């Protein structure tokens, strides 16, 4: 290797050696200074550490002494730390290990809080957040929150916040808002109902009551009237009106002092309007000392309202008072105006339709107003308005010829105008025969004549009416004086006031003898019956009833007479009882006849009964010998069998058949006499059954058929008699059938009042001349052994007893139909 090169390399190595030594020295220096620095740093850190601890505890003190409430909570709201102000705000005493802020949030705000908390965590801070809390004192507080999230190694672990109580501030804001809004809504409104409505809505919202009522006070009637209510539309049917001594509203209207009722159930004046509520607040609206309205709100909970509310409402009341007052005044003015208008209209209508003709003139004697009736009365053929402005006197001149006495009419007007004094009811006769009544009223204003009012009325009819009443009165006076009935007028003490001529004739007394006498003591016979009767009559009269009765009286001669009296109370012009009037008719003759008739009837009844009894006895007495004769003949025949010749036997048989006929005659007479006795028309009879019974015992030859053409009715009648009726008619019908094929047809129809029956046969018939006679007693047409001639008399009597009729239609040789009716 080249020295040079070695030298070079040698030198280079030396240089590097030296450089490395230098660098090592630097490194040594550096690491020494690093160590020192590190040492310093260590010191510094421990300084810092202590400094930090110091600061932190200082800070803690700061927070605890801070004016605003300060709270640290973990992420679920548990309170980790808070200062005294926060404790005061939340109402938490010294220790708060288990308190949770989130749980104190007002239930209505929880959702809002949860939402806000998420944003808060995301953004790391929150500003001007407002929320309601319910404190441990159970108060609702509105709080204002500024807070930030506390991070540990970048992760949120807790939150700190300054929480300020802004409740009062908020309320003040609300009040200002309310007053503003009421002021705004009421301002400029003139309608009292609008104003009241606005006030009730705003106050109910503010109080949170859902209830607020506005009443108007009517001082003169001492009444409060509901004119607006929260959430309700009032009308005349549902609005409430109280008097001043009803309810708390009435009380406040009376006293003018607002009231706060914590428990209405303890207040005797409380009255339930639409629902019972336990708290009430009532405020008067006053102008000076005068209460013009009342605001009233209620809440269902006890002790709901506070004095703050009372103050608040008082402020509102004084705020709106003027506005309400002017609205009331306006309402009143509007009412008065409309009444005035209505009154004017009424007056106008009255004038137009008045029965009187009216003319009004001004102070210059010119026509101001004339009503249509005026034109009618005076035959003026133009519309009333056209007369305006006319001169009154000239008009009178034009009309004067309609009066019977034109000059006195004109002079009368002139005199009246000169005197200007009231004229009433002056009669004037018109040429056409009518009578007018005139009147005059001067019109004065402040003592100065301002015109005249003339009235005219047609009194022709009234005048005639009065005249006719007079005539009528005279007519009745004449009737009373001359009528054949005795008329007596007496006062309340029964003293006779007036008696007409007929009464004087009837009683035999003169007018002087009667007047002033007691009508009840003078004439009636003082018998017990009369006394009781008159007592009853007087009671009836005192009750205002008229009565008619028969009275036994003694006339002046002492004769006993029967009077029919019709008495009625009399009244004076005021409708008060003023005694009575009696009208008397002497019925002595009629009465005697009536008594006679009654006696005769009794006698007749008795002799009828006797006759009946007699008929029975006679028939018995007559029948007994018949039986004896019959028996004796039989015995003669039996005891002489074979000894009597044929002729004798025939004679014996004739005796027997004669006896039978006589027996039948006696039986029929007895029946006939019995028909009218012991009758009972109210028995219910089914005629179908009855006719069946009759037919079952009726002797009916083979060749005769009986038909019942119609179902028969059920009637009310005497059963025995009706039985006999059918039996007699049917046996008659059968008896006289002379045809080989006989029939009897029973038929029935009815009308409104009667049942009509018919019994038709095809027998020998009856000649018309006998149609009446056959009903007479003992009138048999044919001399027959089985006929006595009494059967049809009995039938007729029975039909008549049932208020019916009997007749027949017949063609001799062909048959007969008997018809009879029975009243329903």
């Amino acid at each position, binding site marked *: 290797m080249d020295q040079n090169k070695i030298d070079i390399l040698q030198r280079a190595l030396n240089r590097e050696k030296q450089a490395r030594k230098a660098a090592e020295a630097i490194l040594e220096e550096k690491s020494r200074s690093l160590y020192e620095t590190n040492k310093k740093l260590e010191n510094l850190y421990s300084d810092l550490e202590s400094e930090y601890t110091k600061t932190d505890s200082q800070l803690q003190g700061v927070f605890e002494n801070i004016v605003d409430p300060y709270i640290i909570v973990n992420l679920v709201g548990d309170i980790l730390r808070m200062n005294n102000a926060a404790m005061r705000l939340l109402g938490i005493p010294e220790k708060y290990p288990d308190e949770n802020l989130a749980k104190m949030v007002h239930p209505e705000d929880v959702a809002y809080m949860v939402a806000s908390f998420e944003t808060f965590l995301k953004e790391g801070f929150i500003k001007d957040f407002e929320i309601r809390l319910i404190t441990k004192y159970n108060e609702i507080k509105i709080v204002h929150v500024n807070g930030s999230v506390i991070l540990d190694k970048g992760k949120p672990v807790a939150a700190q916040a300054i929480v300020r109580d802004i409740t009062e501030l908020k309320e003040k804001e609300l009040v200002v808002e309310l007053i503003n809004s009421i002021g705004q809504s009421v301002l400029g409104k003139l309608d009292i109902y609008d104003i009241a409505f606005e006030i009730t809505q705003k106050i109910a919202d503010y109080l949170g009551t859902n209830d607020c009522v506005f009443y108007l006070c009517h001082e003169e009637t001492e009444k409060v009237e509901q004119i607006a209510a929260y959430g309700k539309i009032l009308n005349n049917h549902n609005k409430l009106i109280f008097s001043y001594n009803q309810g708390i509203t009435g009380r406040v209207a009376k006293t003018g002092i607002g009231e706060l009722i914590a428990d209405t159930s303890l207040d005797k004046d409380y009255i339930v309007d639409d629902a019972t509520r336990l708290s009430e607040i009532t405020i008067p609206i006053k102008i000076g000392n005068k209460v013009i309205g009342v605001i009233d709100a209620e809440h269902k909970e006890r002790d709901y309202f506070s004095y703050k509310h009372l103050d608040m409402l008082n402020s509102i009341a004084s705020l709106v008072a003027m506005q309400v007052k002017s609205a009331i005044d306006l309402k009143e003015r509007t009412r008065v105006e409309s009444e005035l208008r209505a009154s004017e209209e009424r007056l106008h209508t009255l004038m137009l339709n008045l029965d009187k003709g009216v003319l009004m003139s001004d102070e210059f004697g010119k026509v101001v107003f004339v009503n249509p009736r005026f034109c009618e009365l005076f035959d003026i053929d133009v519309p009333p308005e056209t007369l305006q402005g006319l001169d009154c006197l000239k008009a009178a001149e034009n009309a004067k010829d309609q009066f019977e006495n034109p000059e006195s009419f004109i002079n009368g007007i002139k005199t009246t105008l000169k005197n200007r004094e009231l004229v009433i009811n002056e009669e004037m006769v018109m040429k056409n025969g009518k009578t007018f009544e005139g009147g005059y009223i001067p019109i004065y204003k402040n003592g100065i004549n301002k015109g005249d009012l003339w009235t005219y009325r047609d009194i022709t009819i009234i005048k005639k009416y009065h005249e006719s009443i007079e005539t009528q009165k005279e007519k009745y006076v004449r009737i009373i004086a001359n009528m054949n009935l005795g008329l007596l007028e007496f006062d309340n003490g029964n003293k006779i006031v007036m008696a007409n001529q007929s009464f004087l004739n009837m009683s035999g007394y003169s007018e002087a003898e009667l007047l002033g006498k007691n009508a009840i003591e003078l004439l009636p016979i003082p018998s017990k019956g009369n006394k009781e009767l008159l007592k009853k009559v007087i009671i009836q009269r005192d009750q205002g009833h008229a009565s008619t009765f028969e009275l036994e009286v003694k006339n002046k001669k002492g004769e006993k007479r029967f009077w029919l009296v019709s008495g009625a109370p009399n009244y004076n012009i005021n409708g008060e009882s003023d005694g009575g009037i009696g009208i008397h008719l002497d019925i002595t003759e009629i009465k005697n006849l009536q008594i006679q008739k009654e006696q005769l009837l009794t006698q007749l009844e008795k002799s009828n009964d006797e006759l009946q009894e007699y008929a*029975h006895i006679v*028939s018995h007495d007559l029948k*007994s010998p018949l039986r004896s004769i*019959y028996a004796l003949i039989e015995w003669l025949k039996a005891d002489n069998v074979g000894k009597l010749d044929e002729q004798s036997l025939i004679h014996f048989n004739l005796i027997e058949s004669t006896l039978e006929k006589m027996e039948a005659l006696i039986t029929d007479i007895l029946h006939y006499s019995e028909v009218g006795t*012991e009758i009972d028309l109210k028995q219910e009879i089914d005629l179908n059954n009855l006719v069946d019974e009759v037919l079952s015992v009726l002797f009916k030859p083979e060749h005769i058929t009986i038909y019942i053409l119609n179902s028969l009715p059920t009637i009310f009648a005497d059963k025995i008699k009706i039985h006999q009726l059918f039996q007699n008619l049917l046996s008659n019908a059968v008896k006289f059938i002379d045809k080989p094929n006989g029939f009897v047809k029973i038929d029935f129809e009815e009308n409104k009042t009667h049942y009509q029956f018919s019994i038709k046969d095809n027998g020998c018939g009856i000649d018309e001349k006998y149609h009446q006679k056959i009903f007479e007693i003992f009138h048999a047409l044919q001399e027959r052994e089985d006929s006595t001639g009494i059967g049809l008399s009995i039938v007729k009597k029975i039909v008549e007893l049932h208020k019916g009729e009997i007749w027949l239609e017949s063609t001799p040789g062909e048959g007969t139909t008997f018809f009879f009716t029975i009243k329903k």
Partner: protein
Amino acid sequence: MIFNNGISYTEETMTKNLKVLLIEDDMIEVMKMNRTLKSLDLSHEIIEASNGEEALRILEEKEHLPDIILLDLNMPKISGIEFLKILKADEHLKYIPTIILTTSSNHKDLRTCYEIGISGYVLKPLKYEDYVSRMAKVFDYWSITELIKA
């Protein structure tokens, strides 16, 4: 008459003779009664009384009380109805069945008699043979009727 056991009885075995008080004022009526009994071959005993008083006298002797009484209504002195009233008011005699025998079909009499208390009301028919047949029925009936012996 057939009973369930099949044994039959004849009516004749049960008839008995009656003691009959006949109150009748008409002599021929009495004769009719006697002749009727004879012709019917009946042996009932007839006690005759021509009026109510006589009948009451007979009834006073209690040993001879009749089984039945046949009474005419129309009689002198005490009438049939009056007699009936006295009879039915008597504690002992009221049990004797009384049958009215009369010509009167008067409704009032009929009702009065039933009100007071009678056991029958038979009208005297006109024809003698009818009379006989009616009487036969009356005696038939009363001779098979159980009576209270006073």
